[in-house]
């Protein structure tokens, strides 16, 4: 399959990329390209210009700073997956990276691209909802930071305006007793999720849950934050009954549709089971000294 013709430019800085982007309403950003290239080949998109940001130096960082884990727009899935910092302190993110497609795709694919593409079937949006992450958006007027909850406005639609580029993802540095997990059910390895559940929680030393947030993948037109499911855990000891209640609420928050991956009923049932598994994994990790 051959993509439609387009022009190509590889700017060396973010301001240059933003200028090029704001000058051409039909331009698209090329980061890892692992969603964009397939869409070009299927001719689902036909941009006039591809702005390749891969030549911008210093945009692939993964570091803790001022209470945030800051991830640059060009940090690859593979780099996140291998990062000792991510593996030791951000198990939900590490789980999620490992769930994305396959090793070759993860060598190029970026977290920034995964979010910007705003595909409700993508894995990271639910994880970022559970983390309470923020994204930094850079445009002609400068940068703004918004909660990821405000970022996903529809299927393949985000809060990015004309001329704007997602430049950084910020995850709150976990406090003592925090842990998370991502549980994905897929027809075969590397597929999009039939359904998946992201959990991030914090346990108090007395064994009650201090904070909990749950995100759902591919069971709605956008990624879903199952707020009631997280809230029911807070202030309680997460015993089997409380976990069951949270799982039930997560299943009720899902808005799945029948498709080739399963029926609406099946997917709702999956969300329930995956929520139980994700909560149990996160709780075991929180108890196991994983921050």
């Amino acid at each position, binding site marked *: 399959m051959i993509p439609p013709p387009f022009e190509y430019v590889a700017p060396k800085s973010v301001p240059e990329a933003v200028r090029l982007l704001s000058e051409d309403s039909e331009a698209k950003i090329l980061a890892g390209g692992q969603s964009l290239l397939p869409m070009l080949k299927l001719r689902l998109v036909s941009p006039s210009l591809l702005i390749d940001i891969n030549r911008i130096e210093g945009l692939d960082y993964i570091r803790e700073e001022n209470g945030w884990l800051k991830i640059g727009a060009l940090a690859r899935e593979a780099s996140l997956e291998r990062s000792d910092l991510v593996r030791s302190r951000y198990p939900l993110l590490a789980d999620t990276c490992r769930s994305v497609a396959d*090793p070759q795709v993860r060598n*190029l694919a970026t977290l920034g691209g995964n979010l910007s593409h705003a595909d409700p079937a993508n894995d990271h949006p639910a994880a970022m909802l559970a983390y309470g992450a923020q994204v930094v958006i850079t445009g002609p007027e400068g940068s703004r930071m918004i909660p990821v909850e405000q970022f996903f406005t529809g299927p393949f639609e985000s809060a990015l305006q004309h001329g704007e580029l997602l430049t950084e993802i910020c995850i709150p540095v976990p406090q003592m007793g925090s842990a998370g997990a991502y549980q994905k059910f897929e027809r075969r390895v590397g597929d999009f999720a039939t359904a998946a559940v992201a959990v991030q929680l914090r346990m108090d030393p007395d064994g009650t849950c201090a904070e909990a947030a749950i995100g759902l993948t591919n069971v709605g037109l956008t990624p879903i934050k199952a707020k009631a499911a997280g809230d029911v855990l807070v202030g309680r000891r997460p015993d089997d009954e409380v976990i069951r209640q949270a799982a039930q609420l997560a299943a009720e928050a899902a808005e799945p549709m029948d498709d080739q991956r399963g029926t609406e009923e099946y997917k709702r049932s999956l969300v329930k089971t995956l929520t139980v598994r994700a909560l149990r994994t996160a709780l075991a990790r929180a108890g196991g000294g994983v921050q």
Partner: protein
Amino acid sequence: MKTYPISLTVNGQKVEANVEARLLLVHFLREVLNLTGTHIGCDTTSCGACTVHLNGKAVKSCTVLAVQADGGMITTVEGLAQNGQLHPIQEGFHEMHGLQCGFCTPGMMMQAVAFLEENPDPTEDEIRMGISGNLCRCTGYTNIVKSIQYAAEKMRAERGQSEPGMEEMVR
């Protein structure tokens, strides 16, 4: 038709060309450079038959533009053997009957080499996850895994890091 000059190193050789922005890396390799060892299978980023190394990382060349490789280093299956000597992974596929029809083999070997660079002493499960982006429609995975185990042991031995008991893994 607008073209863009690119300059890159393919299997150790400097290559320069003017290409359309939309030209895929796999088409550049096969049709411009005539390196047809890299196969086009699914053409949808699933099967991994087109896997090559771009700056040392395994990528699916059907999902990369040739212009993105400008200034880069590419290794294809044609670049695995050195001075007429098969690479350990090629020897492994030969010795352990790692191929049936052979279509997936170039991509399978390129991914295996990149994987073993990172994980020189993998478990069987790790190998299977390592090649999860490569499909063999003959379903010959058992012998593909054995081939990779063969190569892993040989590469470790070549590096002088052979561990006792490892020879048992390959029968």
